[in-house]
């Protein structure tokens, strides 16, 4: 921490405690503020510490059928309006094709039937939203590592980027489509799934039909819904805002293990 940051935080604390002061620290919301940059450095520490403690394959806790006590709470987009999505939805997603490309040996193009014919895995896990709530549900689908093995990830590939059909907002250049990214370590975790079904029924539209990601050791916003395509990349910096995800480009932390 440099001296200016310390002085600023110190002076701010003093002002805030004496004036009970509300707006004193609003500068921290500014993504370009150097003090925010200092605070952000703790996120790297968090990720390193968690990775050290949990090891590669430590499993997220799983629950019993009796713990499924309510429908999965839909959050974020619940009804995408993109024309291509609406067409696919109308056809019961029969024409849906998941493409997996980028830095791979063999790009894949898979229908839902193709995905259903692959080895399936199901798990009852707890979904933790960044807002603070949790919800337990059963997820069934194909392990992402299975697809990565089929496609053959190149040695240069470091991240898996998921692009989605849903847009949570509209910018000057049109709808801002959801996207997310995880590193290969998360992607190859034994519980990381491309889920086709939820609570023993096909994935509902509100929860991401026809395909969504499950990364059980991370927060809800990592688990992209309405997955359109997957690509393996070596860097995130040239994609959209460069921070690796829709919410990450809006100030949320990329790793999202806390």
């Amino acid at each position: 921490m440099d001296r200016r940051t310390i002085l600023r935080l110190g002076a701010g604390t003093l002002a805030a405690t004496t004036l009970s002061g509300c707006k004193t620290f609003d500068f921290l919301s500014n993504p370009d503020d150097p003090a925010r940059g200092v605070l952000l450095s703790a996120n790297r520490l968090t990720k390193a510490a968690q990775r050290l403690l949990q090891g590669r394959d430590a499993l997220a806790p799983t629950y019993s059928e009796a713990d499924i006590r309510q429908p999965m709470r839909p959050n974020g987009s619940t009804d995408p309006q993109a024309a291509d999505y609406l067409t696919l939805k109308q056809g019961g997603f029969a024409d849906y094709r998941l493409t997996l490309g980028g830095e791979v040996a063999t790009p894949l193009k898979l229908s839902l039937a193709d995905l259903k014919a692959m080895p399936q895995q199901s798990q009852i896990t707890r979904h933790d939203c960044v807002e603070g709530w949790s919800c337990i549900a059963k997820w069934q689908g194909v392990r992402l590592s299975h697809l990565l093995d089929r496609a053959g990830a190149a040695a240069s590939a470091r991240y898996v980027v998921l692009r989605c059909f849903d847009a949570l907002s509209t910018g000057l250049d049109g709808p801002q489509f959801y996207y997310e990214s995880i590193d290969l370590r998360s992607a190859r975790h034994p519980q990381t799934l491309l889920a086709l079904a939820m609570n023993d029924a096909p994935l509902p539209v509100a929860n991401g039909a026809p395909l969504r990601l499950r990364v059980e050791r991370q927060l809800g916003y990592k688990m992209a819904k309405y997955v359109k395509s997957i690509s393996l990349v070596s860097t995130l910096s040239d994609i959209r805002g460069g921070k690796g995800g829709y919410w990450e480009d809006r100030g949320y932390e990329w790793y999202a293990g806390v």
Partner: protein
Amino acid sequence: MRNRVDGPTPKVIRRHGPWTRITHWMWAVCVFFLLLSGLQIFNAHPVLYIGQQSGMTQGFDNAVLRIGAEGGQGAGPAKGVTQILGHRFDTTGFLGLSGPADARQPRAFPAWATIPSSQDLATGRVVHIFFAWVLVGTLAVWAVASLVNGHLRRDILPGRRDLRGLGRDIIAHLRGPLRHGRRYSPLQKLTYFAVFFALFPLMILTGLTMSPGMDAAWPLLLDLFGGRQTARSLHFLGMVLIVAFFVVHIAMVLVAGPLNELRSIVTGRYRITGNGQATEEH
């Protein structure tokens, strides 16, 4: 050393070591930022539950605390409502609905109590996690320093004599004004002991339990607290206890002589009189 009897001559002693003073102010800063950013984070979903998950449907309600706004737009004037274990309280102006009377905002904790002042969960989390690390680092430094310089054994760990003297100390605190000597009184020891060995560990561990990454690393956390949502509620309760500690702490400083107390935690030097509580040991 010669006994001082009834002499009004004040004597300046060295009350707080440098590590005690440095870590004290580190905590002051940490607790300030953790509290206000924590309230910001809470505002993103101002409901607390008991168990693994959040009951959010009609047939499944495990909420124990809920802060929200009701009414408005033709349904009568809007008001802030806080519900605790089924009891409802109108908290308009502070909780649930706050801000200037002509521009009320529906938000759990008011703008003056959160960092940043407006709704900004992402920034609240950045601030909270940074200062959580600083707090843990400070605790580690304090633990080592206090072991080495004897602060822990002398001032924090309550001994048999402290427990015996507790009754008398409570009465002395109720009577006021307080006279502090070189030693911490039994109540002080017990309070700091509880903060360092119960409250801070509770906050750190319940904080970790809310992390899906940590739940995979240390599944025991969930068993310890009875689920992620219970841990979140306990984290909130711990926050209330820390605020209560802060209020009492400041009140005691005021009662015991604010300038002298403040000087001792800044410079380490503390003025005592020869009589009264000057239970010096040499």
